[in-house]
């Protein structure tokens, strides 16, 4: 077992992990931050996307030891401490960007990473960026709409595909 220390959502966190412990399991099982989901466990679905040192990564395809010393942000850190949703989360709610909600944590974290680099993406750029996030309710249209709205763009004209 190895001791790891990282900052998760701005709060220092530490624990003992095996070499093979994945970051997502450390977050869920040790830190009890179960908002980060494991959908496929094979790096396909993106439900486990978190930010490590500001970059979106799949927490199921990174070892906890490799996040030692890193700043990690998860879905739990997105809303304000009083529970007020951030702009992206609020847009998902307003535009019905979730159905069952399982993929939502990864979608929101991917959207946050996109908007940080590209504050006014085109619809095509949003869809391309979400390549690694799968919604098995197939609710992509409203997810894209929510992200466009969160970026402050007009969404009423977005036609369903």
């Amino acid at each position, binding site marked *: 077992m*190895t001791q790891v220390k990282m900052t998760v959502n701005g709060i220092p966190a530490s624990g003992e992990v*095996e*070499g*093979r412990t*994945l970051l997502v399991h450390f977050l869920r099982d040790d830190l009890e931050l179960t908002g980060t989901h494991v959908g496929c*466990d*094979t*790096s396909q679905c*993106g439900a486990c*996307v978190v930010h490590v040192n500001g*970059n*979106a*990564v*799949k927490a199921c*395809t*990174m*070892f906890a*030891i*490799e996040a*030692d010393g890193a700043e990690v942000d998860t879905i739990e850190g997105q809303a304000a401490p009083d529970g007020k949703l951030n702009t992206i989360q609020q847009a998902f709610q307003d535009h019905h960007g979730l159905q069952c909600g399982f993929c939502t944590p990864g979608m929101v974290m*991917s959207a946050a*990473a*996109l908007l940080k680099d590209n504050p006014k993406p085109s619809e095509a750029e949003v869809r391309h*960026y979400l*390549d*690694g*996030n799968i919604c098995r309710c197939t609710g992509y249209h409203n997810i894209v709409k929510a992200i466009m709205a969160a970026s402050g763009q007009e969404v009423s004209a977005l036609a369903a595909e």
Partner: protein
Amino acid sequence: MYEFEIERPSSVADAVKALGQEDAQPLSGGQTLIPTLKARLAMPSVLVSLTGIKELQGVEMRDGALWIGGGTTHATVMHDAAESYPALAKLAARIGDPAVRNRGTIGGSLANNDPSACYPAAALASGATIETDRREIAADDYFQGMFTTALEEGEIVTGVRFPIPQAAHYEKFIQPASRFPLVAAYVAQFSDGVRVAITGASNEGVFRWTEAEAALSERFDADALDGLTLDGGNMIGDLHGSGAYRAHLCGVMTRRAVQAIA
């Protein structure tokens, strides 16, 4: 996953030393290796993580060639090579998905030499040189078949030097589930000739299409490829496409790459 230890050396020398242990294996971005470990297709006793080694990071011009550190992520290449070698930056920008690009590295891709990976095509078509902890290997000698390279046990790709072509383009036909190329062609035009590398198609892994190179060196026009075909007999055939289909796609992708340049 089977049990293993992870070591995180901070220098190439320490990493090479750690890789001397029995059943030790290097770990770069892990975007292929971790799924492989989950499937219990590998059983290392020690993984030597290369991600904390600063000397493996970077994208910079050195003596007229573009040097990229082996531990550099696809996302970094996408940003930092955009001006010096746009075709390569565009290739990096379309590997996997954003989260994969933030972890996966060029050294890992070249060391693995997946028959459908993108970077091997760029390295081969650009006539790149693979730098390791102990020597330099020309791309023409480096790729030795599916998942096979000239690398020795415990040898680390420390960097890659890309000569910069006058023009280049990478055209890939994406297999939509995996986002790997089903077939892709990298065409690089140099003052002394054209190089064409094909990935995703052959059972032998990435290869140079020398007939297309000769035709395009003579006349750089998609029509110069008329009548040239590849044999589907030694091409990968699976549920996504037969060998003959892939052989056909080689021509289509090469043609589109040339059209994108010309």
